[in-house]
């Protein structure tokens, strides 16, 4: 069941939470809404669910207008950030709730409810805990009960608000993988909100990056990571170094160095920012060409396969980060205080609005 969002606007007083958002989620996909807090991602999710009314714009489920449909008729599954399990009910009753509140005419029989609920609890690997109260479960188990409860009503779409936000790092990683597998099994159109780029890139089919109520870019994890469309996405996904300089006829001038920027061949003396990923740099003991920047090693963190260096540019004193393979670090003997020449291997230049 696909979701089509068109020209959505929402403000809270003077604060514009959503500024003309349009978004398509194809049926069966798992989509991540990624952005910093205050970017409007949770508001968008709540409007899709019907928990919040939009000021303007429309929501369609599979071509059918749902904009004015009340929440309880939308048939969405919603997993809350803090799970919102019914604390006075057992795990079984929590999952059964959506079936028990159905109108008598369409309510399944007690035996059917039992079968559905136990089937779902089996799916989320909690069948042995059916009689427990939510308070007797760990965070990860509660999260899975919340998922089973949302799936019990056979939702058209599944919406998850920061599903792993309240869990510790280890449980989080496991649940992430588990959600991916669950989605392959159940295959319901799903949208989840997260501020964790790793989570979004690892789990989803598509990532929608939001900032200040707008969509910055939407695409597969590879697309958004390898080809960021805006400076914001560049800065938000992965570790990146910024170089402020002037763009002139296909080159960016940064201090005493020049970087090539062929896509700006027509520019003449314009302010610009060059983005370089921390791993897209080469370090050499001597100056190789005009693009290399002179720097001094200030700090080294040498654990794991990648060594992280903090370098201070000689010209201007700015700090940049460089991540280089361990083998290279060992062969070059890049100790603290060493003088090196940094050559960016992959530069993306954006003009700076004046």
């Amino acid at each position, binding site marked *: 069941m696909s979701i089509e969002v068109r020209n959505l606007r929402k403000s809270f007083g003077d604060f514009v939470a959503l500024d003309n958002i349009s978004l398509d989620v194809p049926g069966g996909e798992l989509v991540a809404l990624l952005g910093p807090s205050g970017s409007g991602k949770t508001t968008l999710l709540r409007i899709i*669910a*019907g*928990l919040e009314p939009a000021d303007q714009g429309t929501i369609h489920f599979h071509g059918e207008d749902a904009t004015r449909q009340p*929440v*309880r*008729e939308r*048939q*969405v*599954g*919603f997993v*809350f950030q*803090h799970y*919102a*399990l*019914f*604390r*006075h*009910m057992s795990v079984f009753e929590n999952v059964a*709730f*959506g079936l028990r*509140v*159905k109108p008598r005419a369409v309510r399944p029989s007690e035996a059917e409810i039992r079968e559905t609920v136990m089937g779902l609890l089996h799916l989320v*690997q909690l069948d042995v805990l059916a009689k427990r*109260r*939510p*308070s*007797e*479960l*760990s*965070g*990860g*188990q*509660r999260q899975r009960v919340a998922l089973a*409860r*949302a799936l*019990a*009503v056979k939702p058209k779409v599944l919406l998850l608000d920061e599903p792993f936000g*309240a*869990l*510790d790092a*280890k*449980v989080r990683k*496991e*649940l992430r*993988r*588990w959600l991916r597998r669950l989605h392959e099994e159940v295959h319901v159109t799903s949208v989840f909100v997260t501020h964790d780029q790793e989570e979004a890139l690892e789990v989803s089919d598509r990532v929608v990056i939001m900032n200040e109520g707008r969509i910055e870019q939407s695409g597969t994890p590879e697309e958004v990571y390898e080809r960021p469309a805006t400076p914001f996405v560049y800065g938000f996904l992965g570790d990146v170094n910024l170089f402020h300089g002037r763009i002139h006829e296909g080159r960016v001038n940064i201090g005493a160095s020049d970087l090539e920027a062929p896509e700006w061949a027509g520019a003449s003396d314009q302010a610009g920012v060059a983005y370089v990923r921390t791993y897209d740099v080469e370090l050499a003991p001597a100056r190789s060409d005009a693009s290399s920047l002179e720097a001094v090693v200030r700090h080294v963190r040498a654990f794991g396969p990648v060594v992280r260096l903090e370098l201070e540019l000689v010209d201007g004193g700015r700090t940049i980060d460089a991540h280089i393979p361990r083998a290279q670090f060992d062969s070059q003997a890049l100790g603290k205080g060493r003088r090196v020449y940094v050559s960016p291997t992959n530069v993306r230049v954006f003009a700076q609005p004046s």
Partner: protein
Amino acid sequence: MATTALSRPATTAPRAIIRATGESRAVRWTLTTIALVFLALTLLLPLVLVFAQALAKGLPTYWAAIKEPDALSAAKLTLLIASIVVPVNLVFGVAAAWCITKFDFPGKNLLITLIDLPFAVSPVISGMIFVLLFGAHGWFGAWLLAHDIKIIFAVPGIVLATTFVTAPFIARELIPLMQEQGTEEEEAAIVLGAGGWQTFFRVTLPNIKWGLLYGLILCNARAMGEFGAVSVVSGHIRGETNTLPLHVEILYNEYAFAASFAVASVLTLLALVTLGLKSLVEWQQRHVTAERPGTDSTPERIAA
């Protein structure tokens, strides 16, 4: 208890290690003694005296005072008032707490302040308000007289005054509880397809039941024991508009001490039963909350 487990280097002076918030033994004993003596003098002693005075002239006199028709009628009226006031405040309290905690609307803070009003003003003034409104010379006095409706110096007046005085109990008990619980569970219920009443009876009510019961008990205790406001509106008509607290006063003013204390002891017993119920509810509540050891950080593994 942690202090004994601490090992200390042999060189330091043998000085008891106290928690930062702890106090020395002498201070603790003194404070405890002061508190206990104060409680004994102001609470326990009067309680014992009530029963001692009531039984001073023997059991037969005690029984006679209680079985006297005016006393019985006062007891009946008190129960009648409580049985009207408590349900009314139950509905009002739940509705007020519900709309204050689950919705945002203009005038919300004003409503919260208004709910506290009966706690802030003297009960006598509460009674006076109703006399001013419904008394013979009050705002609606002439109209009520014309239609032969009696409110002041009659049961409706007592009900109104008692309702006013006891209005805050249930709402005050529920508001912090429901604020703490938030609206997420209700939202979850609605997303799952539950209607308004289903959400209330299946999700909201079970979550607040202990707080609600606690509020009900307090409300009932005050409804049966209220003196000031009721005294102003009742008119003290024996066998008609006398409640138990008013009856105690009348007997006392007539120098019928034994009878007065006998009736007072009935009220005291009601209070003790209320306190017992209240403790039971509190214990139950603690018992239920103690069953929640789970924390979000509990590590766990998922069978892959």
